[in-house]
């Protein structure tokens, strides 16, 4: 496997495309996270609030993006991870997770990260600072 320290500015970690979002993904995340807001699992509750249907937890998408960095756990850790939630994720949406290296500052590697849907719209975007162990 490539070392994270071998990437250069402007290069990207390999994109990961997720399977279409299904209800069970969100039910599992509700259970695992403790966020039982029904707009993520029950159609009627989502529709009552004016949504077109249930939407994924923003934190589910944010959690998914972090896994791009997991293979490098031996070299360092995510020191900073910031996300802005920009768009809704609906059932059957197909998300692609992306991370592009923007800056190397001593032992800190900066990435722009995002999840984009099948229409190439960013649903979340933000930054990761990956800190290499000394």
């Amino acid at each position: 496997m490539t070392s994270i320290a071998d990437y250069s500015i402007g290069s990207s970690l390999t994109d990961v495309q997720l399977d279409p979002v299904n209800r069970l993904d969100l039910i599992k995340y509700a259970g695992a996270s403790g966020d039982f807001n029904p707009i993520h699992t029950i159609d009627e509750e989502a529709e009552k609030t004016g949504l077109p249907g249930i939407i994924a937890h923003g934190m589910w998408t944010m959690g998914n993006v972090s896994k791009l960095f997991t293979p490098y756990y031996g070299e360092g850790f995510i020191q900073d991870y910031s996300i802005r939630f920009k768009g809704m994720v609906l059932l059957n949406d197909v998300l692609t997770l992306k991370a592009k290296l923007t800056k190397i500052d001593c032992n800190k590697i900066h990435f722009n990260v995002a999840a984009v849907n099948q229409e190439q719209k960013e649903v979340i975007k933000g930054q990761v600072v990956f800190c290499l162990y000394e």
Partner: protein
Amino acid sequence: MLHHSIGKRSEKVKNIVERGAVKKFAEAIGDFHPIYTDEETGKQSRHKENLAPPTFPITFDYGIIADLHLPNKGLIHGEQTFHYERPLLAGEEVYCWTEVKNYVEKSGSHGEMGFLMLTKYGEDSKGQLVFSAKQTVIINEVVRKVMLA
């Protein structure tokens, strides 16, 4: 509406990074890496222990801030950040609390919106900070009316 809460914080609450919870959480975000679940992989690693995913602190109990009553429906999560001093380890105890950093109201095309900025903290049993997490919660016009009623 929530201005009176600025600066208030909760009492520290003891949480345990429970292994079963880490496994369930990692699976729920589709991260099947053995560093989260396989004991041997954990033992062989730098921290000699399994890790928890970076967004895992969302599962912790941060205690209650007196007089801050938020509805459990209708809030919008606008922004979220995590800052780590080191990775979070499976099995460890973390003492967590939360503080209201700011609250502002703005009027826009969707009416009056409230923006609540919370910072959450987790420190280990030696009192060393492990992580802090900031979140912005957006309270829209409809929810504001319910809260004011």
